[in-house]
């Protein structure tokens, strides 16, 4: 059976849409960059990662930490940083969003890089955010 594991390009993104997207990205950035350290992947999974951007990970892990997290929760590549997935775990506990850590985040569509995720949700290119985690 074929599973829906990758965010596929439904239709080419028109030049007009890109223009609108870039304009709206400015406003999205005002919120997402200072609050979450957004990396503009255009395929936001913040709602499943307790609002910590997983794309700050040097390995761009979208589905949980690699095996290299240090004993103090540090990143294996940059020891002076915290592993983003370590932080995601702690935040998920704090916000009772542990259930969402089991969600499979799809294979990224790189054509969405640098576009506004809000537009992409509206255009149904990507999964909508999950606001309520539901019961544990």
């Amino acid at each position, binding site marked *: 059976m074929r599973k829906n*594991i990758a965010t596929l390009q439904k239709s080419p993104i028109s030049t007009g849409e890109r223009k609108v997207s870039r304009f709206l990205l400015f406003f999205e950035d005002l919120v997402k960059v200072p609050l979450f350290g957004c990396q503009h992947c255009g395929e936001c999974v913040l709602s499943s990662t307790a609002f910590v951007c997983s794309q700050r990970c040097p390995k761009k892990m979208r589905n949980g930490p690699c*095996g290299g997290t240090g004993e103090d929760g540090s990143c294996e590549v940059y020891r002076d940083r915290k592993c983003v997935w370590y932080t995601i775990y702690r935040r998920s506990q704090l916000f009772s969003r542990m259930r969402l850590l089991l969600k499979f985040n799809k294979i990224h569509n790189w054509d969405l890089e640098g576009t506004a995720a809000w537009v992409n949700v509206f255009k149904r290119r990507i999964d909508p955010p999950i606001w309520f985690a539901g019961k544990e």
Partner: protein
Amino acid sequence: MHPLKLREKIASGEFILCGEIGPPQSCDDLAIREKAAHFKGHVDAVNITDNQSAVVRLSSIAAARILLEEGVEPIMQMTCRDRNRLAIQSDLLGAAALGIENVLCLTGDHQKFGDQPEAKGVFDLDSVQLIATVAQLNAGYLLSGKEIKKAPDFLIGAAANPFAPPLEMRVIRLQKKVAAGANFIQTQPVFDLDLFSRWMQKVVSFGVHEKCAILAGVMPVKSVKTLLYMRKNVPGMKISQEYIDRMHNASEPQEVGLKIAVEIIDSLKQINGVRGIHILPVMWESIVPTLVTKIQKSI
């Protein structure tokens, strides 16, 4: 009698033994054949690493094929560090055409740890997505959704590190890997039985051990130097001080290293949910026949 394939062995519920070979940093196929001879007839299948620690080596597909020629069942490792989704799918189809039936899906060590830290890391997929991709190919579809006329039928493996914090997140990630389609799991080498059994308890409490075969990693070491090196340089390794002290005080470190490996395996076999052992003899492949004979007495 023809030996059981890894897939059949997992289905049969018998105790499983796997090995691991790192291909050379050259095109010397004899080096692989010589290493394979140490494993032949002693283990069920042997991992072929894919540029481990981000150091350039002979490709895992080619090495796996050489293993097949030697009559040893290979488990081809595939990492997401060096390939994007196009290369991954094409390499998987190629491997299947060469008769390779087992693939171990890894994210891969970051290029910063290798011999060419200047390289661009690809990481187009992560390991969970790679597992899902292999499952998709098995189901007869490319990632694009296009149907494959002759689909591969891989047995899908994945890795788990029970020793990196936080413990609960490790179990969640394991659950994700199994949900994505992993049939068996190999763990990082165990040098901390206490932590491993705590992880295993959690795994068993979620019933994950019933959906996939969990093979615990064991690394026989030659000297205390290897242990200290691993503790310092290999990300995500946890080694009990007890083993370091014992190796340090040993007059015959190789004997003690073997003894420790046997002890760890004996303890692992008592842990509920462990279906087999994955032996990782780094630079010490010749110990495998001795080690296997010693542990088989108690299987």
